[in-house]
């Protein structure tokens, strides 16, 4: 299966839907949804609602996120928005503001 990489210098404004892994090192504004993993790299800026199979945030995300499997907030990552997921980890040094809904 292929892979989608939004490189550091790239900006996408609009709606991205994917069946595969999406790695963001650049900027996304709008909506991002993937059936697979979404990886927001350090330095990436995402101003979008994100839905994914799993989500890992090492960069900056502003928007509501949902992941069917898990959300990992990594050191240096920053998330402002509500999270809906089954499992979540927040590493030391990550910033987070929002609500978590773990569907309990």
């Amino acid at each position: 299966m292929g892979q989608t990489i939004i490189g550091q210098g790239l900006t996408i404004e609009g709606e991205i839907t994917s069946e595969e892994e999406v790695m963001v090192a650049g900027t996304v504004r709008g909506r991002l949804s993937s059936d697979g993993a979404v990886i927001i790299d350090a330095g990436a800026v995402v101003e979008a609602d994100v839905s994914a199979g799993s989500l890992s945030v090492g960069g900056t995300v502003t928007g509501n996120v949902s992941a069917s499997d898990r959300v990992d907030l990594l050191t240096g990552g920053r998330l402002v928005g509500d999270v809906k997921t089954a499992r979540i980890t927040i590493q030391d040094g990550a910033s987070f503001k929002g609500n978590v809904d773990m569907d309990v």
Partner: protein
Amino acid sequence: MARSTAAPTDVNEGTESILGRGTRVRGRVRGDGDLRIEGFVEGDVAISGDVTIEEGASVKGDVQGTTVTLCGELHGDATARGAVVVRAGAKVSGNLGGSEVSLEEGASFEGRIEAELDLPPELMR
């Protein structure tokens, strides 16, 4: 900062972006570096590097780059500071403009070719 943990794959400093086969974009794509499109894009693409529309990919919108290489489908104009190459098997409806424009045998093309263009020095906004 820039301490990327746990990411299993490395991105080489944003030099190349890939919109994979299973990916669909509706909106604007712009920025630096090269871009390879394998999926579907509805919207304009303006990149400072090279743009390649791979076989099986489809773009509806105008495409700008340093060079533009077309192997898939394009409905829209392709403008390059350098070469525009339309490979065999590509389907293009739109105008092509660049310092060089080449069409391979087996490509289908409907539109105008403008090989002499006065492009503004700033392709990108």
